[in-house]
């Protein structure tokens, strides 16, 4: 082994400060004359900077790795790929980031609103229904619109609905008394509105298959309408479980606050009646709606 090799082996221990004093003095004398070892010290010092990082940051795959994993996985070696996949299994935000990266690959335009709507409809319980059947439903649905309640869950459409995502009330999730904050003002002139009620359910909860639900519409605490729902009606949206619900604002009273709630329906079980979603909406008499 050459002198340079001997000192090269000592560099990491010089950098982490664990060399004996005489060894430290010896290597420092060598460094004054050896540029190759000085480069190695610089490299080792960069590794030591890892101490400055938040341990949490070390556990998330680096953004570049996630992008490579999606865009050009062939450039990653098998061990790195396996490490990334292990981290993805444990990190929900990493999985979400991957989903978002996949939505737009390099060179692709982001989907237009009608493409997103189609993707949303295709993810509902009507997934297996072919395009021709959709047209049939549109024709038949015209009759239903005149006779059914203000909330629909079966995707009957006359025109492309206004699509609104609505997250659940944090206070409800925390078990506190629900506030009367209006989550969304919906234009009374809208033909149909597709509300996606974002729940706290996980995909695992749905897959367990032992839950049933009831969707309610109340006004001033009085029940106006309710309908059962099962797990089939839910969609997974950005790794959150949401229930798409079509509403017909023209059948509701303008300038009136309604409460939409989704509850567990499991008689005899402690979970029965527990609200998974509860927000207030108001139908505006005007032509434009907005979030308050």
């Amino acid at each position, binding site marked *: 082994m050459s002198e340079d090799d001997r000192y090269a082996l*000592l560099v990491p221990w010089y950098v982490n400060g664990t060399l004996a004093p005489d060894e430290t003095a010896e290597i420092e004398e060598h460094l004054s004359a050896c540029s190759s070892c000085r480069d190695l010290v610089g490299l080792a010092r960069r590794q030591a900077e890892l101490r400055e990082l938040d341990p949490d940051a070390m556990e998330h*795959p680096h953004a570049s790795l996630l992008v490579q994993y999606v865009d050009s996985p062939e450039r990653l070696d098998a*061990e790195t790929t396996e490490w990334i996949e292990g981290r993805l299994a444990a990190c929900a935000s990493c999985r979400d980031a991957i989903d978002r990266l996949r939505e737009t690959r390099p060179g692709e335009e982001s989907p237009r609103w009608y493409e997103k709507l189609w993707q949303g409809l295709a993810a509902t319980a009507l997934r297996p229904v072919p395009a021709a059947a959709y047209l049939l439903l549109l024709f038949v649905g015209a009759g239903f619109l005149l006779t059914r309640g203000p909330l629909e869950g079966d995707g009957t459409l006359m025109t492309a609905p206004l699509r609104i995502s609505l997250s659940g009330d944090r206070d409800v999730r925390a078990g506190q008394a629900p506030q009367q904050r209006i989550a969304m003002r919906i234009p009374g002139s809208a033909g149909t509105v597709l509300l996606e009620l974002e729940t706290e359910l996980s995909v695992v909860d749905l897959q367990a298959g032992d839950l049933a639900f009831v969707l309610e519409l109340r006004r001033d605490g009085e029940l106006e309408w309710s309908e059962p729902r099962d797990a089939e009606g839910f969609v997974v949206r950005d790794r959150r479980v949401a229930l798409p619900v079509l509403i017909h604002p023209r059948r509701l009273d303008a300038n009136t606050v309604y409460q939409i709630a989704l509850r567990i329906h499991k008689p005899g079980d402690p979970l029965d009646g527990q609200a998974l979603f509860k927000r207030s909406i108001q139908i505006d008499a005007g032509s434009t709606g907005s979030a308050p």
Partner: protein
Amino acid sequence: MDTASDADVLAGFRTGRPESIAVVRGWVQSAVRGGNWRFHDPEGVTQEVLLTLTRQARADRVRQAERFRSYAYSVARRTCVTVYHQERKSRSVEAPEAEEDDAAATSDPHAEVERRERLDMTLLVFQRLPAHCKDLWTSVFIDGLQADAVGRELGISANNVRVRVHRCLEKARKLYREVAGHV
């Protein structure tokens, strides 16, 4: 401008030509807005990406001018992932208060930005090292153990530990060159 080559756009972007900046901004915005990221401040993310691209372009670190669009898109997507993690963490109920941006507080913000970029590259290299090197790095550079102590943990001699760490350091050197080539 749509028909200008990537190399032309890069040259214009480097010198601050408005039409080139507009083209690059369009590329970046398609990445920031296209992935349903739901950023609190998408324009802020766009600006961050543009600043990164400006620094890289002016430091002549864009290796393949003819693929500048792909490079810009890649930087944008990486930034989106990083910001996404940060925003999710800050939205967490149990997250601590968001820390102040240190770059604004230091006397030399450029040095701070360079330090962060260097740290970011070191993290990337670390994550690409084989598992046994990552374990050694933790023992040597994070826990600061002596060679004897690491050897005892692994059941090997101190000299064997030194050889393994040296080999991992050479792997890291090779990865730095590779990563710098693709940055």
